[in-house]
């Protein structure tokens, strides 16, 4: 019979060896059943005992889109971008942003929230933040359903370049996970981290071209702020492939991918280094 555990192990040894990142990732794959059940657990818990249930996954992005369109399009007169109506332009950026921010927030709390488990039984702890992030994919899916309806309303079809979307989103996923791991670990030691995440997300929203386009109006000397921000690079790329029908700026996406993968490797490594102390710190 195949065993999910190696037969010989030294429980929870911290190791300074970067190779351990890769051996950690393989044991993670071995426990994918656990990841699946944990994601379902999160998902069930999320909207339980709320009257609207999963309808909340529609209410949040929809209401934000309506109010932002009103403020920025009707009042501040931000017109259509590249012949794309403003609400549509906004929404293609807003949906991935909402995924990013809610995944980061819930991932940060995921290990603390599973205190009773963490102190009692060993399993690869990275399952917890990963499941929290995966759970938010459901909200993202609903967001894209609304986007589809919105595009129907404006009589537009996604451009042919949309096939680049999965690749771009994969980079986004790696980036979110890479940020979530160390934050979930640090939040265990210092509960300030969750508040810090809230503040940083608010600031980060304004530095990400969700409500405004990433175009020539951005002063040249500040361009780097957006270049090193994978959220900005990816949201711009989503708009290009879904709405404008042009290829992403591969140089920038390439840099974004490097940053995302770097963040992931470093974040996972930090998480594994701190993992041994989790049960003692809750």
């Amino acid at each position, binding site marked *: 019979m195949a065993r*999910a*555990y190696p037969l010989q192990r*030294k*429980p*929870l040894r911290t190791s300074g060896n970067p190779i351990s990142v890769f051996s950690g990732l393989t044991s993670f794959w071995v426990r994918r059943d656990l990841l699946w059940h944990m994601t379902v657990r999160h998902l*069930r818990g999320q909207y339980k005992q709320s009257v609207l249930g999963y309808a909340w996954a529609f209410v949040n992005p929809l209401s934000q889109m309506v109010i932002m369109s009103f403020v920025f399009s009707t009042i501040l007169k931000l017109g259509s971008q590249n012949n794309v109506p403003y609400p549509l332009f906004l929404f293609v950026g807003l949906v991935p942003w909402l995924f990013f921010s809610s995944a980061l927030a819930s991932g940060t709390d995921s290990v603390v929230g599973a205190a009773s*488990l963490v102190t*009692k*039984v060993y399993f690869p702890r990275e399952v917890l933040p990963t499941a929290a992030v995966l759970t938010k994919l459901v909200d993202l899916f609903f967001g894209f359903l609304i986007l589809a309806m919105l595009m129907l309303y404006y009589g537009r079809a996604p451009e042919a370049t949309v096939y680049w979307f999965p690749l771009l989103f994969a980079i986004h996923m790696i980036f979110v996970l890479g940020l979530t791991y160390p934050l979930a670990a640090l939040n265990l030691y*210092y509960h300030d981290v969750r508040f810090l995440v809230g503040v940083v997300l608010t600031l980060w929203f304004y530095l990400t071209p969700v409500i405004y386009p990433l175009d020539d109006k951005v002063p040249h000397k500040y361009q780097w702020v957006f270049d090193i921000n994978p959220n900005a690079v990816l949201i711009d790329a989503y708009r290009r492939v879904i709405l404008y029908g042009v290829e992403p700026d591969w140089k920038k996406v390439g840099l974004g991918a490097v940053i995302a993968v770097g963040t992931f490797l470093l974040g996972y490594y930090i998480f594994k280094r701190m993992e041994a102390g989790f049960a003692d710190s809750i």
Partner: protein
Amino acid sequence: MRTASEGPEIEFRNVSKSFLLRDSRSLRDLAQAIVTRQPLGHQFFALQNVSFTVDHGETLGIIGRNGSGKSTALKLIAGVTAPTSGEVLVVGRVSPLIELGAGFHPDLTGRENVHLNGSILGMTSREIEEQFDAIVEFAELEEFIDTPVKRYSSGMYGRLGFAVAVHSKPDLLLVDEVLSVGDAFFQEKCLNRMREFKASGMTIVLVSHSPALVSEFCDRAIWIDHGHLMREGHADDVVAEYLEKIPHGSGVGV
């Protein structure tokens, strides 16, 4: 089934475990501690230089008063916490019966929780499917298996937790005072199941306040007091010495 090792199933080599008892956990206090070079809290030793081994198929009892370090030892075996110094070696799949049903989600049904808890304990989906009926039957919850577990009584909760743990085919079963769940009838059922496991050659570590249970059930025992290993040996001998040295009535009970 066992491919690894001829040696002991569990080995503690000079294991110490200390905790930093922190009074606060805010960044402000951390900054203050760094500036003033004060320690963030004080060191507390739960275990000090403890060495022992448990062979395959052995039943080890751990006795001691409250706060003596028994549960810390169990957590080290479970792999939940890491030793501060020394080495803990454990072979095989460990199924901890530490607080039954710890991994249950109140909003999920009994059925869903069996799948969740089973996968936490390291079972694959297929293993859970194979064992599912046996788990439900053992827990005597056929009627309620599709009810959210928040509607369960604490006894039902514990029964389901115990049932999943014993059906996860562990190489090593860790039991921490869990036999206080359920009614006398179910307790007897659990004990019987543990006797069967023992007879089948499974390694079992039992932590208990009850010297009677340890001497009845275990082959060997260790007595831990204030983090020190006081005595290791035949269960009856260790229990007898424990009862002699510890004033009667302190910290006894199940």
